[in-house]
């Protein structure tokens, strides 16, 4: 975990809608090191998926538009690439697993054919090679009788099995980065545990870096090395996983962690709840996007948006208030 693989700075993405422009991502920056797993957490509409899709230019343009930022990957800016160049990267060096294994596979193509596609496109395999590699990959992700099952169609697989196929496809060209967009959200808990276990095993075997997008703080705790929390199109807190859960500093993160019922807890205590709702992003926030729901809010929060700043070696927070002391930051 040393050298930097991906460096994203100042990413901004907007969508044109009939109601006006939605400022989905408002200046997101982060780095990803080799072999590292970065968890990206946030609620629906916070911009977590959009920022990661933007990096691979998977945002439909229009209505979407990447208005600013850069994403440096191996000396090249992904956002400046033309369609042919980015297509070489997608599925090759950076690949993606989506949330819904039911809709992200083509229902009228056999699994074998769908798996062969990226292998023939990116690796230049012929049909026989692609087939052999597909069997290997399916075995890698734990699908029994892999050779027979290549002839099956997606509906003959269960949800968990389909997600395994998606992961096998994403891994087929030995990517350096795997972006997983809520890969276990549609699955039951026991199946989710299987998939998380599988990804942890594959990460150790293959050594790729992972960006794991989720709204589930529990899943992130089990898989990530570092976590970025998003709100209103910004990263509002970023820290190593242990630091984040032990010392959450941003009022939103504190609220999120506090609103989870403790499974080990004995008595029944009332859940901490964050009042109000996430912001509608029809204007680019000029104040802190969390200020209307924050109990530490000050005058400054309503006028200026805090930037993400380091408070120690592995912890960054975007907040004007030091939530430990309750006083304003210098």
């Amino acid at each position, binding site marked *: 975990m040393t050298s930097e693989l991906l460096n994203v700075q100042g990413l901004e993405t907007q969508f044109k809608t009939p109601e006006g422009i939605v400022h989905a991502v408002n200046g997101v920056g982060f780095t990803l090191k080799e072999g590292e797993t970065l968890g990206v957490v946030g*609620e*629906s509409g916070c911009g977590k998926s959009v920022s990661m899709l933007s990096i691979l230019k998977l945002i439909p343009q229009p209505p979407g538009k990447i208005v600013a930022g850069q994403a440096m990957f191996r000396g090249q800016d992904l956002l400046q690439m033309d369609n042919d160049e980015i297509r070489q990267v997608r599925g090759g060096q950076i690949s993606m697993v989506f949330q819904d294994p039911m809709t992200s596979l083509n229902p009228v193509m056999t699994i074998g054919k769908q798996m062969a596609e990226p292998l023939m496109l990116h690796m230049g395999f012929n049909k026989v090679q692609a087939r052999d590699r597909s069997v290997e990959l399916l075995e890698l992700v734990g699908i029994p009788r892999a050779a027979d099952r290549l002839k099956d169609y997606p509906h003959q697989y*269960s949800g*968990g*099995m389909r997600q395994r196929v998606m992961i096998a496809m994403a891994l087929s060209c030995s990517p350096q980065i795997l972006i997983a967009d809520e890969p276990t959200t549609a699955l*039951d*808990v*026991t*199946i*989710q*545990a*299987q998939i*998380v*276990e599988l990804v942890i095993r594959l990460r150790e075997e293959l050594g790729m870096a992972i960006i794991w997008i989720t*709204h*589930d*703080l*529990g*899943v*992130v*705790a*089990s898989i990530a090395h570092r976590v970025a929390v998003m709100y209103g199109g910004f990263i509002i807190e970023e820290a190593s*996983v*242990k630091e984040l*859960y032990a010392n959450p500093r941003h009022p939103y993160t504190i*609220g*999120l*962690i506090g*609103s*989870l*019922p*403790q*499974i080990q*807890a*004995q008595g*029944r205590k*009332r*859940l*901490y*709840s*964050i*009042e109000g*709702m*996430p912001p509608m992003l029809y204007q680019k926030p000029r104040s802190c996007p969390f200020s209307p729901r924050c109990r530490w809010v000050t005058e400054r929060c309503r006028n200026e948006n805090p930037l993400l700043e380091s408070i120690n070696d592995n912890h960054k927070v975007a907040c004007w208030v030091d939530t430990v002391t309750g006083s304003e930051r210098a």
Partner: protein
Amino acid sequence: MTENEVLIQVDDLKMHFPIYRGVIRRQVGAVRAVDGVSFKIHRGETLGLVGESGCGKSTTGRTMLQLYQPTAGKVFYEDIELTALKNEPMRHMRKNVQMIFQDPYASLNPRMTIRDIVAEPLVAFGTASGKAIDERVRELMGLVKLDPDFMLRYPHEFSGGQRQRIGIARALANNPSFIVCDEPISALDVSIQAQVINLFEDLQKELDLTYLFIAHDLSMVRHISDRVAVMYLGIIVELADRNEIYKNPIHPYTKALLSAIPVADPDFYETHDRIVLEGDVPSPANPPSGCRFRTRCPIAESYCAESRPEFKEVSPGHFVECFKWDHPDNKRR
């Protein structure tokens, strides 16, 4: 709350959905969504019903309220047998038994105002008329902490959490005593879930409500329930007091399910090993013989295939359906 007064009793409830094939639509089988469940719910209590998708937990809730015609079994409300009621008396019973649905987007008619949605049960039963309707709607909206001035708006103007509050207000309109909550928070964001759960608890205290709380989120269920029942493939495999079931789970499925819950604590994963179940849930159209769980059970024996184990009370109030509940194999965690 009066201790031990049974409000709802379910006896060996079964709900099989027929499968038809061929030109003459011959019945070739049945999906045994619920295949013999029994439990009691006391007045003022919350019974949590958990399980994975397809285990029959929602079907159980719906069948209890006679939204499906059960294949077999009985459901009692106080001493009235709901399963024996004809349509019209059952319709009147619905004042007392209500339901809150999972999807706050699909369960509200987009072309009705909030006032009309919340007032519908009042009008349907003639509980209020004229000005009294508006008054009651205001009162209900206040109860679920929505601004009554919004009552002429339409559902699309509200967020998911607010819509769920509207659904709750509608369910409360005729002062029910029993509410089936069918995954009421699954579609909501984490920060909103806590708001709605707190509302459920407040309402229970204020209005002396009894809940059947159906969910797949085990940590929320533990939080809100007094007792918890775990379902697998149409049957209840374990039922106990909430602290008992989380501290001392006995059925191998409950153990696996609990260990699969993601815990928001990175240190937890350094000290705990997970039990990860192999395989998928079998089809309820063709469930395994004998014990339903044996195909995925880490400690199954050949005799588990022969007959279904008894749903046994192994300690006061703690029921388990497993042959090996007392076996040394099952003691190792």
